[in-house]
Structures are given as C-alpha cells and as structure tokens.
C-alpha cells in the first residue's frame, strides 16, 4: 500500500436530488499520471472538489499518503500536500498577478510580526515572471489586476501557481481549455517535467490527444460513476470515446446488470 498516494472508496456526493458522484473507487500510485475523462456534467469536477476538501462528501472514504483524511477545507488539503488548478480557477479578481500567484503563501520578511509580517514584493515579482515564462503566456504587465486579463492569461496564472510549489499530488481540472496553441504546448511541457520528477498528477481534460500523450492511465466517468479504468497504452482514442458516450462499459463497473 505504500505505493498508493491517493485512494477513495465509495466516494459519493449528492446535491439535493442530483447524484453528482456515486460510489467512486479510485486509486492513484506514486509517480503516476492519470487522466479523468467524461461527458460534461459527468461528475469530474465534483470528484476533484471532494478530494481537495472544497466540499464535504456525502459518503465514502479518502486515503491520502497512507492515512485516512477528512479535509475540513482546501487549506487542510493544501497543507497535506495537494495542489490544484480548479476549473473555476480561484483567482482574486482585484489583485495583480504576483499577489494571486503567492496568495496564501506570500514571501515575507520580518516574520516575527505574525499576520503583520512584511511582504517581500521584490522577491515575489521576480519569481512571478519566472513562473509565467514557463507557461509561455504573454502578459504585458503583471501589475494589472486579474479582472483585466484574458481567459487564457488567467488560466496560465492559475497553472503557474500550482507549478511553482512542490507538492505530493497535483490536480489540474481542464488546465488547457482556454489556452492557445503555444501555451498548451508549454503547459504540456510542465506536466512532462512533473512526470520526470516523479510527482503524481490527476489531469481532467476533454482533449484526447493530450490525454493519450501525457497520461499513463485513463479513468472514465459517466453519469456520476466511474465506468472504465484503462491503460493509455492499451486503448485507442475511439475506444475511449466509446466508453465516454456509453457505448462500452467495463464489466466490473456495470451497475444493476446494465453495461
């Protein structure tokens, strides 16, 4: 079991009458890159919100890094070592790029002042430029506020934030959805770097080429349930699409005898 970084058992989330996630059993090995695919509204982001502590699951267990966890909030998850790029990005609109990048873990001086410790703007500034360059995004001025950024620029800020800090597990929810051709390539490079450093990753994406290129394994969600768990090397894109659309279901995930 020591090779498992994340495991969920029977993870379930209902919103009122909506059964958004139903009994998800999911396992991630150390160093492994797994893709989650599925229709819109299949429950992928819901799954991510449960394991990052943004929401409390209705039922089910989460084991992380060898211990059972029940994160009260995203702060707990982050402190346990989970970094996430959320689909909603989670950026503060009125702050500028460095502020957002370092939100919650600012570089500071005079730390004995507690909450009133001094911000080290200079250090954060330099690091921000470096982090952005890794994503390949072009931002004319990082002193502009996030609300004035284009969709892709925002997304790159969120990705740069995750990539800047080391973690035990990285989760990216559709990170390249709004990105241009070049920026997508750069972000894929970042992911490859994580792989070479042995950091595990959960990648949610609708982009078949990307998933096939980057991931070891593909888990398919359908109607709030996991319906397939595939080794990327063993399947073709068409097969994966068949699982997504419901043309195929792996026998062990069949519900009520329906494949």
């Amino acid at each position, binding site marked *: 079991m020591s090779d498992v970084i994340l495991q969920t058992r029977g993870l379930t989330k209902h919103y009122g009458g909506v059964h958004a996630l139903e009994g998800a059993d999911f396992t991630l090995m150390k160093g492994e890159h797994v893709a989650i695919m599925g229709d819109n509204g299949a429950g992928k982001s819901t799954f991510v919100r449960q394991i990052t502590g943004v929401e409390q699951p209705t039922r089910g267990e989460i084991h992380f890094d060898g211990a059972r966890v029940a994160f009260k909030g995203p*702060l707990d998850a982050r402190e346990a070592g989970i970094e996430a790029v959320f689909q909603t990005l989670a*950026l503060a609109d009125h702050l500028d790029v460095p502020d*957002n990048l370092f*939100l919650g873990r600012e570089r500071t001086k005079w730390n004995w002042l507690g909450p009133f410790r001094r*911000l080290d703007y200079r250090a954060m500034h330099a690091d921000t430029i470096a982090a*952005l360059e890794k994503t390949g995004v*072009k931002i004319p*001025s990082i002193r502009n506020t996030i609300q004035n950024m284009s969709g892709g620029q925002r997304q790159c800020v969120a990705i740069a934030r995750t990539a800047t800090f080391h973690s035990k597990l990285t989760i990216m929810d559709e990170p390249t959805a709004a990105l241009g051709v070049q920026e997508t390539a750069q972000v894929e490079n970042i992911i490859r770097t994580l792989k070479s450093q042995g950091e595990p990753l959960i990648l949610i994406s609708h982009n078949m080429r990307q998933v096939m290129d980057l991931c070891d394994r593909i888990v398919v969600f359908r109607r709030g349930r996991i319906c397939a768990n595939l080794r990327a090397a063993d399947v073709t894109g068409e097969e994966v699409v068949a699982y997504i659309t419901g043309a195929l279901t792996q026998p062990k995930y069949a519900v009520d005898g329906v494949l």
Partner: protein
Amino acid sequence: MTGATLGTGGLKYDHAKRHRPPELNVFLALILIVAVFEVLGQILPYMNGQSFLFDTQGRFDSIFNEARLKIIILQVAIVGIIALGVTQVILTGGIDLSSGSIVGATAMIAMSFAQVAEVNGSPNTRAVFFEQGWVDLPVLVPVVIGLICGLVAGLINGLLVAYTRIPPFIATLGMMVTARGVAKWWTMGQPVSFPTDSYAAIGAGMTPVYIFAVLAALFYLVMRHTVYGKHTYAIGSNMDAARMSGINVQRHLTLVYTIAGALAAIAAIVLSSKNLTAQAGMGVMYELDAIAMAVIGGISLQGGRGSIIGTALGALIFGVILSGFTYLRLDAYYQEMAKGAIIVGAVVLDQWRQRRAAQRS
C-alpha cells in the same frame, strides 16, 4: 522598474499611462468642494467677503485661518478613527453597522473607571464605582478596559461573520442593537461625567487629530505592505478563491472585525475624554458617517478595492462640508438637504472621473 521586468510581453504597453491612483479623484473632489465654499464666501453678499480657509482678518500668524483648519480635521478625527476599522471590514466585502454603538457602550464603561474622587471639593458620590472605591484610578485602567470592550465586541462580530457565515450586515446590526442596550443598561441611562485629569488629557486639544494621523499612517502601511493587508483584499475580491488558495479566511475575518472593534474603542475613549462625559446615546449614526467616509474615499462596498488614503481623504471631505456649512451660516434644514446632495455628488464626481479616465486612455 524597467519594462522588461513588468511582464512577459505580448501587447504593446505604454508604461507612462499606467499610474492613475483613484485617490487622486477623491483629492480633486476635496479641492473642488473647498473652492466652492471659498467662492461662495466671496459672492454671497452677507458673507462680507470672509474667506473660508484664509485669514482675512489678520487673526493668525500664517495666511490661513488656522482655527478653521484645525476644526475641519478635529471634528472628523474621531469618526475617522472608526472609519479606518470600517474600511478594513468593507475591504473584505463586509460592513460594520455596530461601530457607533460600540462607541457608546465602550465610552460608558471606560468612563466609569475613570472617575475622580471629588467634584468641586465634595466626594463624587455619583461615580459609578463609588462604593467600591474605584475612583482616581490610573489612566491605564479605563483605557485597557475600554480596549477590551471594543475587542470583545469586535471579536463577537468576527466570530459570527466568520463561523456562522451570516451576512455581516446582520451580525453587526445585531451587535449594534445589543451594544446600544448595554450602553443604556450600564448605568441605567445615567450619563457618566467627571473623569480624572489624566483621562481628560487623551482627547484634549488636537490630540485626537494626532491619534487619527498615527493610526491612519500605521494602517496604510499594514494594508499595503503586510500579509494581513493582502489577505484582506483577497477575501474581499473573491472569498472562495481566497479559501481555495489556502488563506484561513475564518481566522482572518475574525481578526479584521476585532481590529475594527478595537478602533471603535479607541474612538470611544478619545471621544469621551474630549467631551469629559460619556452618554448612552454617544456615537449614534457614527457607523453611517464612517461608512460614507470610506465610500466617498473610493472604497468599494463590494470589497477588494480602495485604500486607507482614500478613507482619510473621505474624512477630510466630511470635515470640510461640516465646517463649510457653518461658515456659510446655512439654515440647519438646508444643511441636511445639502449634506445628502454633497455626499452623493462627491461619489458621482469620483465615478465619473474614473470612467472618463478609463475611456480616454
């Protein structure tokens, strides 16, 4: 800073055009209002060409009417102190309606520990703690007790807002009603007067202005250069994002409201000292004045935008308006009507200039 470090390229970017601090608009509004009063003083016949800010009668050494300059700041210094705390609350996207009532309750409680033993030679038998003999106490006692009152009230506000997630409007409205009740109950509505000389010194002369200035400068630095300030803005800008970024939003909100309570307590101590009395009705409507100062100074009620400099300028605008009306000897009825219009006008002006600036650039 060179252009190279400002970004990662892309569009053409004209560095010269970047800085246009919104506080500038507020400052211009201030100047405009002063100018209007000055001009009115010249053209209204009954004013005999008296000047608003300048010394036309040779009463002072400088060219300014120093008495006027002083009162302009003095009369808003105390509400200004409250406004510093309220500004932080508003920056988090909240609101604090309780500050005026906290002033009332704190003033009553603090003052009752600051009583002299003798008034006009006879024992001050009406001192709240006369029987206990708690009179002529060192000034630290009422000050510390007052601060604790404010901190506790603010803490309760903060805990309510942060942990029960009720709207700040309601949490602080509840505190407003409750604290006013406490203020009346403390001495069953009796005013508390006759403080010790050392307590009376806190609010004497221009001291309130100095206290305000020091606190404003301090909080300017705090909001701009510390983690506390950054997280305050972040929470106001997008609370969910702040939470997901791993900021301890609940602890931070509690801190913000507590600090606001403490600032209200400081205001209460200064106010009761300045007036040499504490009354249960003290501070009524101060919360609205404080909020108005902040908003006139460009603090967005949605949270996340504005600065302490703006609030200080907003306070000055208030002071100028109050003084200007008396200077023009405007009828009390018209004063109120005009005050409403000017508050609105100042903000409209600010908005309009901001939009024009955004458009033109």
